């Protein structure tokens, strides 16, 4: 894959921002977190900055500082809206930016989510994606009640037993993505014919049962929703270790990773590229974006002070899986320009406070990157795949019908068979 001279840039939207005290900032709108206008305004602001896409966080469980249980805090944002619906609410209010809601694979039906994201792609005219996320928390399982899981204790993370459980969660997620992608392909693009002469609305030869059989679900198909405008909306996933990297390498179009320096970024990118090769996808474009939490201000001191002020309001210093950056837009541009040499193709920035850090990204960081020739000065495409330089794949079933008797996983990457995680 030849290096793109331009960086790709996304923002991760979550509540009032990623810092738990962000909602107390003067320009925060905490009373509006559950309104459509709040989310439309944020996505429109990101579009002003010509960003590739926004992601919208989600979870079935209520937010908590305790990974494995629900806390009893009342001083942080609690409650959120369904991310797919929130994404859909912002789609007609914007026209270019990609919109990527989080989808929880552990507790939902791939059939429902496939048609939901396809429909988001219609409502957004080719700007939809999804971020696949597993749920591994016992209290989230209890909300659904179908099954249970044991807590993941950080100290035991490397034991065989815990690793096997994590592998199982991700294996289910891989199957989930495979089903979703097959369902998107299950209608060929030209299946709707409206042939008045023969009275046929569709050519049923262009509709395909997907006949997926796996350890967690069997899905017959076809989808009820015709193939979406992008053919395949963009699949993304966040990973911190080998098992999720394998999911990214096999099933995603964009992976989000959390390096803390340039060398760390290089090591992660190398591992994902190796996994990509194992998965037989070496020739396909797979973006690896670095995730960063950002505090942006006029001066480094101001950013550091704001971070300290927020930490004090929260009562404890903010920590994150991702590197936390506090400084000026110019300094952040330096970092982004440097780490890209590790092989990152873009970044997903997590604004510490909304809208403050988002508007610093769109109004200061973006012009800075543009001045350095590192970021687009206008949208060159109208679809999310277009922004990311991803071509529009043909339906695997159309390809199969035309060229090859055996269906192949075009554009999907995940193996055709179900339930196999290890390589």
């Amino acid at each position, binding site marked *: 894959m030849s290096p793109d001279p331009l960086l790709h840039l996304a923002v991760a939207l979550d509540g009032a921002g990623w810092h738990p005290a962000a*909602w*107390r900032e003067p320009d*925060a709108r*905490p*009373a509006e*977190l*559950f309104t*459509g206008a709040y989310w*439309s305004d944020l996505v429109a602001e990101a579009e002003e900055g010509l960003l590739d896409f926004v992601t919208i966080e989600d979870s*079935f*469980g209520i*937010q908590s500082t305790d990974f494995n249980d*629900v806390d*009893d*805090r*009342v*001083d*942080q944002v*609690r*409650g959120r809206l*369904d991310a*797919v*619906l*929130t994404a*859909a*609410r912002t*789609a007609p*209010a914007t026209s270019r930016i990609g919109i990527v809601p989080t989808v929880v694979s552990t*507790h939902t*039906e791939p*059939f429902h989510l496939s*048609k*939901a994201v*396809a*429909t*988001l792609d*219609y*409502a957004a005219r080719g700007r939809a994606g999804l971020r696949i996320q597993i749920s591994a928390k016992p209290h*989230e399982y*209890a*909300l*659904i*009640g179908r099954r249970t899981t044991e807590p993941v204790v950080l100290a035991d993370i490397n034991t065989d037993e815990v690793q096997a459980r994590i592998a199982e969660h991700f294996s289910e997620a891989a199957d989930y993505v495979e089903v979703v992608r097959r369902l998107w392909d299950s*209608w060929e693009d030209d299946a*709707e014919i409206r042939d*008045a002469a023969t*009275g*046929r*609305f569709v050519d*049923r030869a262009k509709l395909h049962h997907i006949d997926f059989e796996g350890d*967690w*679900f*069997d*899905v*017959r*198909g076809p989808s*009820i*929703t*015709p193939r979406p405008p992008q053919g395949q909306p963009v699949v993304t996933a966040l990973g911190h270790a080998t098992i999720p990297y394998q999911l990214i390498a096999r099933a995603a179009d964009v992976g989000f990773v959390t390096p803390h320096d340039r060398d760390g970024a290089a090591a992660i990118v190398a591992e994902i590229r190796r996994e990509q090769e194992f998965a037989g996808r070496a020739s396909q474009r797979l973006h690896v974006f670095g995730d960063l939490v950002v505090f942006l201000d006029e001066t480094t001191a101001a950013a550091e002070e704001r971070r300290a002020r927020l930490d004090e*309001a929260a009562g404890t210093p903010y920590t994150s899986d991702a590197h936390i950056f506090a400084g000026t837009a110019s300094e952040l541009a330096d970092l982004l320009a440097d780490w890209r040499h590790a092989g990152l193709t873009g970044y997903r920035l997590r604004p510490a406070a909304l809208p403050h850090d988002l508007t610093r990204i769109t109004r200061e960081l973006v012009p800075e990157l543009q001045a350095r020739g590192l970021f687009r000065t206008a949208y060159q495409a109208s679809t999310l795949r277009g922004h990311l330089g991803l071509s529009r794949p043909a339906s695997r079933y159309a390809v199969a019908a035309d060229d090859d008797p055996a269906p192949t996983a075009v554009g999907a990457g995940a193996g055709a068979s179900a339930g196999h995680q290890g390589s």
Partner: protein
Amino acid sequence: MSKPVKQIHLAAHFPGVNNTTVWSDPAAGSHIQFDSFAHFAKTAERAKFDFVFLAEGLRLREQGGQIYDLDVVGRPDTFTVLAALAAVTERIGLTGTINSTFNEPYEVARQFASLDHLSAGRAAWNVVTSWDAFTGENFRRGGYLAEQDRYDRAETFLRTAWELFDSWDGYRIEADKESGVFLSDPKAGTFEHHDRHFDISGRFNVPTSPQGRPVIFQAGDSDAGREFAAAAADAIFGRHSQLEPGQAFYTDVKRRLPKYGRTPEDLLILPAATFVLGDTDAEAAELAVEVRRAQVSGQTAIKFLEQLWNRDLSAYDPDGPLPEVDPDVSGDSISKGRAADRMYRDRIAVAREYREQAQAKGLSIRELMIERTSRQSFIGSAETIATQIDELVQADAADGYILVPHVTPGGLDAFADRVVPILQERGRYRADYEGTTLREHLGLGAANKTAAPVPAGAVR
């Protein structure tokens, strides 16, 4: 004693997967592109309708082992369309059918509460249930639900969802920047529900939405369905748009309300209705015949007959007489994924009825199917249709109608422009919205949360 004049309720169903929709009409547009939904919803809002309604389907229909290709095939996801419509409209209610069989209460409650927030109080849920293995083949759970369990599960599903909607009662988002208190109480959203269908607990993560609970619709016509509606629904998506069956249904359902502590105003009867509008009654009548012939082509007539006969009838001439052979009552159903597949309890008896009707009137297969399948509800000039609707509502055949135009998405335009102003002039229909929420449009008042939502054991 003269009855008070009733105000008419109107709503619109986006036409889709059904032979009612004339996709071959030159004016027909997409059933998938969002612009079609936006056009339809904006027209309905211009006409001050209570809500737009979307049906749901979870498996493409099949007949004779092949995907059914004569009607519109395919539809978008209900929740996603409704949430996007919330961005392009301001007042109109957003009603979606969501199946309780292939979903979990926590997820569906979250989605409806989210939709209600994102639309500022305009969400409604048409609760349906399905149990067939055919649809189940697309889902984790499969088709496991026994038919006799379906209303039990639906009732329990709804009650569980209500517990979730109500789990934030008395708790608030304070969002007080000064004091640093975001949430009024750490227990907000706490719930626990254990029964034979659902065994769940935790904290619901969507705060109370503008309507408290979405408006609840029920669409079934069986005795159990009517009882379910009387106990739990705010409105019924009825089937009887004609005077006498409408009155019979209306009376039957409304008389069931007192035993649940409810009054007739607590449950609206809104039958689905089609219409054919012309400049004159004569023109409309002529157009109506054309529409019926477009809805029931020769091929469609044969396919309809196959659903009853349960045999391949492709060799028969639609313009000829009914088959001599009797329906096949032994085999698996030739048709899958239709509500009608479950309707023919006694195929032989229905076929006999068909034969008698065809013989008495000398009807071909196609002519008979045109007569037997759903009729147009309102045919005439704008004046005539306005009068028909008003008379039916005043005669307690309905509280209003959910209109299903036969052309997508522009089929509602003429109704909005020509019939609605007449009803407004006559003082039988609102000139503008008086409230902002769907509950207000329907005159329902706040969700009644003190009564037990559905008495246990009320529905079997």
